[in-house]
């Protein structure tokens, strides 16, 4: 216990245990550690199975104060070798096997009152937390809708995705509602027509009337069901923001319309007057269907236009940097061709050249950076300037609500 063992004693025990000569074990052990150092010098991270990870970490310059004199001085930065032991090593040294570790977490889960939640318990908590996130954004939707939310939501990105889908679904739902309104107006009109027709019919044909009214009731039921479907959509859509439901309802409605179209001529076959009106109805429904088709086409075309415009912009952007470079090219050949040219033109050419140089340098370091997951200002500073000290410069140029927690996707200006 508490002995200090040297390299030699380790090499000796290694020779004894593995049955090789002392010379071999010695050279091997030396090569072992030398290789680690060599790899570290080339900036690599050395991961050794069964032991742990060696990694070079840079410590930046820092300022300190001499306590006795009160003077400030700089402690120069240096590289330090960080080592992280493997989990298995920790388990072995702590004197517990894997099953021990597991039984521990289980017992603590059930017995200890004020504590110790195992890893398995943390997961549902995370999910709960994530589900809570979208709540304030979706205030308009009924609370019950959240019962159906897919537990797939596990990252903020997916939350955004769902939000997008929700937005899309909402737009579609509004469209559907409008269509339903149209259909409703249509239904009312048809009912009025039927009433008028009923009035025209002679009192002798009472039986025919009853026959007529029954299908009419059916028809109105149909359209009512249709309306109900639409009413449901408003609640269903936020719950399941998939696009599959939408077309289903549309087809349902169209089917219902077709039924209306096909049923009515049947019921009023006897009366010649009604044929005209049913013809009218047919045309109106055909118009509505046509309108819908045109609307769909419009949306599709607009989408394509937008894409095309984006493509054009993309093409234009890379083209721009080349235009300022052009004027400098003709400026160059004038120098050797006409050595008598006044100083002004020479200065101009030089200026143009320097501008060109500046433009060439810029693209090497982008002027903005989009934050990614797990990135911090310190890391950005390290990446673009090679030192952690530029964080203050970054903070001067940028304004953040919370510099310690910048949202993913935020654009950081690089001075």
């Amino acid at each position, binding site marked *: *216990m*508490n*002995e*200090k*063992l*040297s*390299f030699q004693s*380790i090499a000796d*025990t*290694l020779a004894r*245990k*593995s049955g*090789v000569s002392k010379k*071999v*074990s010695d050279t*091997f*052990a030396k*090569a*072992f*550690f*030398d*290789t*680690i*150092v*060599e*790899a*570290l*010098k080339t900036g*690599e*991270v*050395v*991961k*050794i*199975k069964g*032991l*742990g990870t*060696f990694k070079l970490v840079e410590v930046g310059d820092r300022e300190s104060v001499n306590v006795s004199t009160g003077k400030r001085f700089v402690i120069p930065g*240096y*590289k*330090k*070798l960080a*080592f992280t*032991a493997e989990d298995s*090593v*920790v388990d*072995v*040294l*702590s004197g517990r096997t894997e099953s021990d570790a597991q039984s*521990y977490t289980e017992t*603590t889960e059930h017995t*200890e009152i*004020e*504590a*110790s*939640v195992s890893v398995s*318990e*943390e997961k549902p*908590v*995370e999910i*709960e937390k994530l589900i809570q996130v979208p709540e304030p954004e979706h205030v308009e939707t009924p609370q019950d809708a959240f019962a159906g939310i897919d537990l797939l939501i596990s990252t903020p990105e997916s939350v955004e995705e769902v939000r997008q889908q929700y937005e899309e679904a909402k737009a579609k739902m509004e469209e559907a509602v409008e269509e339903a309104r149209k259909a409703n107006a249509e239904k009312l009109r048809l009912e009025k027509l039927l009433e008028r027709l009923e009035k025209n019919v002679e009192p002798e044909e009472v039986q025919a009337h009853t026959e007529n009214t029954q299908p009419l009731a059916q028809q109105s039921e149909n359209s009512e069901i249709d309306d109900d479907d639409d009413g449901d959509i408003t609640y269903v859509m936020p719950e399941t923001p998939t696009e599959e439901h939408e077309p289903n309802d549309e087809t349902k409605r169209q089917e219902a319309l077709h039924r209306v179209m096909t049923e009515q001529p049947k019921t009023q076959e006897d009366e010649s007057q009604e044929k005209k009106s049913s013809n009218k109805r047919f045309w109106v429904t055909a118009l509505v269907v046509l309108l819908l088709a045109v609307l769909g086409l419009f949306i599709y075309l607009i989408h394509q236009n937008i894409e095309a415009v984006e493509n054009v912009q993309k093409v234009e952007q890379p083209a721009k940097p080349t235009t300022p470079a052009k004027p400098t090219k003709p400026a160059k050949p004038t120098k050797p061709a006409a050595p008598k040219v006044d100083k002004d033109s020479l200065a101009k050419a030089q200026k143009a050249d320097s501008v060109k140089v500046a433009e060439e340098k810029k693209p090497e370091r982008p002027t903005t950076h989009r934050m990614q997951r797990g990135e911090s200002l310190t890391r950005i500073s390290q990446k673009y300037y090679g030192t952690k000290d530029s964080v203050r410069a970054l903070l001067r140029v940028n304004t953040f609500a919370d510099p310690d927690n910048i949202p993913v996707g935020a654009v950081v200006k690089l001075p």
Partner: protein
Amino acid sequence: MTNKEFLERISQKTHLEMDEVKELSSSLIGVVLDEIADGNSVTIQGFGSFEPREKASRKIYNPTSKTYMVVPSKTTLSYKMSAALKAQLNKE
């Protein structure tokens, strides 16, 4: 660098077979860990020293579930680079 690449480099240096290198490296780690588990510290000249370090158990608070959790005490392997290595690495 992965474990395999590491062992390959050792094999090139010592002119030993890969199988031998594999065996020797695992037994070398075993020897070092045995000593550490016994509470000894192992110093390798020009590289650094390994020693066991006890980490006390501590309570942590989970703000989302509002519960306290106990992280059990454990012993980890700590490493400290030697002054010679530090000088070597900071030379450039």
